[in-house]
């Protein structure tokens, strides 16, 4: 993917650029808001990663300007502030996702992946599939190798989100936000428990696992061995 990182802190920027390059992405970086706005407007990027506080033009302003000019490139905001107002403001300005510093690189990478390769799925898609696992969105049933699997509503939502992001790592925080619409971080292993219960139903009875844990990061569902 082609990424543009607009971040004024040199150290953060350099470790992010290295990280993304490791993952095989092409990263342009600039430290100034004005320059960033020009690059974002001119270049062909898959995802913009924008710091909220920037010299020159403020991150919020960059996104407002881009959206005003009809540039629809997905934007992920970075910020040091934890106030919820900030996130609401950022999303209202046209940002697609939001991450509070300090964050783990895996979390950022997972979110950038989710934004960048957001599949152009038609909304009327009726079935999601990974390998032998199939989810029918109309009848709300799940089956593997033709065997029907009974899922609780919450398990169904969890699996649906994983399947929509198949092949990509999703983090615990992303699951909390997207499946349960909660922003806080629980102090008990509630997300893990939900995932393991889902796994017990879709993987345990079968010969090879589809839902894998990526240690310290999150989960991924795919059909590869």
């Amino acid at each position, binding site marked *: 993917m082609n990424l543009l990182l607009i971040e004024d802190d040199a150290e953060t920027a350099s470790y992010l650029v290295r990280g993304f390059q490791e993952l095989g992405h092409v990263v342009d970086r600039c430290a100034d808001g004005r320059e960033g706005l020009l690059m974002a407007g001119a270049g062909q990027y898959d995802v913009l990663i924008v710091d909220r506080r920037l010299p020159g033009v403020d991150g919020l302003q960059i996104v407002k300007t881009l959206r005003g000019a009809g540039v629809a490139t997905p934007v992920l905001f970075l910020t040091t502030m934890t*106030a919820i107002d900030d996130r609401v403001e950022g999303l209202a300005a046209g940002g697609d996702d939001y991450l509070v510093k300090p964050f783990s690189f895996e979390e950022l990478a997972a979110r950038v992946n989710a934004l960048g390769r957001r599949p152009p799925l038609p909304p009327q898609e009726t079935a999601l599939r990974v390998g032998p696992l199939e989810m029918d969105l109309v009848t709300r049933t799940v089956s593997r190798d033709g065997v029907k699997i009974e899922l609780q509503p*919450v398990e169904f939502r969890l699996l649906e989100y994983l399947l929509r992001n198949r092949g990509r790592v999703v983090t615990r925080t992303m699951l909390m936000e997207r499946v*349960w619409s*909660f*922003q806080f971080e629980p102090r008990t292993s509630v*997300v893990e*428990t939900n995932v393991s219960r889902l796994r017990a139903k879709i993987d345990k009875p079968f010969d090879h696992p589809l839902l894998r844990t990526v240690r310290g990061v999150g989960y991924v569902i795919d059909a590869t061995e």
Partner: protein
Amino acid sequence: MRTRLRHTTVFRLAFTYAVLFGVAVTAIFVAVFYATQAQLRAQIDAGLRGEADALALVYQAHGLEALKDAVSERVRAARKLTGSRGPEDAGQRFYLLVGPQGETLRGNLAVRLAGGAAATGFADIRLPDDVHVVDPAGDPVDSVRLHGLALGQGYRLLVAQALNESQELERTLFALLAAALAATLLIASAGGFLMGRGVLRRIAAISATAGEIMGGDLSRRIPPGRRNDEFAELARRLNAMLERIDALMASMREVTDNIAHDLRTPLTRLRGRLEVTLLDARDSAAYREAMAEAIADADGLLRTFSALLTMAQLHAGTRRLPEERIVLPELCADMVDLYGALAEEKSIDLQTAGSSGVTVRGDPELLAQALGNVLDNALKYTPAGGRIRISTGLADGTALVCVTDTGPGIPEQARKRVFERFVRLDAARSETGNGLGLAMVKSVVDAHGGEVVLMDAHPGLEVRISLPSAPEGQP
């Protein structure tokens, strides 16, 4: 650190008031003086007019010769009274009868003086230096009050009175008034000075105490003084403030100590893990594992930091809370949706119950977090086979959320303490968690204008959160 009196507010006030008071007193004195003087003059004028009229009556009744005799008689009487044998005029009253050509017919007023006062009516005359006149006491007279009366056919009668007596009276009065004014100013200044010094002494006491406190002795308090006045009130207030600061400092110290303990442990663990990895790790898998654990440690530290930050913001009121409508039963149902799997895993029966329409206003994220923290605790401490109930309801315009478990509960004497930061009942801190869970709950509920109390559920613990209700109908 003595403030010089001259530069103090108190001195300026005292001085200003002394001056204003002095001006007022002077004005009164001046008015009294002139009123007295005018009264004296009026009396003199009335006397002169009476004497002149009496002589005029003699002239009209008995003719000029009779008048001449009458004047001579009065002059003689005056001389006799004074005992004067000199050439000078003497007496309290003076007389002069002037003919049509201005010649002196009778009398004891000097001719020059009479010539200078040709007019009729009243006049103050200052006697020339070479005219020697004495009053009955023998004191020289330097000015007289003169009354002239035309008798007809060119004859004029002049009657004068020495102003000695009246001038002396005026002088005495003036001296008295001046002395009284001086005394007033003196008393006002001295009073102001003394009062000022008293006030300064009280302020100096406060200032000295403040200095000692700044010097590090936080236990110092301002002496309230003997009187129960404004200064005593000020001292009480300042002392109350100092108590509060002292208490805050103490709790701050406690938090700092706890932070030091809570962060030092994971930091030490993190450091140790990395060090051991450097020594022991043989392959990249081992490194990888160690790194993942190190990251988990760092995440725990960051969580503690961010919880502390959120609570500080809530406490300081710097965080603006959104005013979103939150339907509590829905929030609780979402919670059960998330926590249900974990409860089932631990064989705990987790249920929610309550009437619909229990709504509040606030920050859904923060309330979810608070409720999550309560559930985290309940799940942690409730034994397998236990039960957790989340119930919502309304009571007297207050929205209630109660989380009841069948765990060991919290002893009554510890129920207040668990809301403090970093307080854990298991002193060894062996359980996971950062000790901020319930403190965060309290911060969030406080910020929403609510209250959280812990109660005995016989057996178990009931966490009762009450929040101001925002009924459906309201905008």
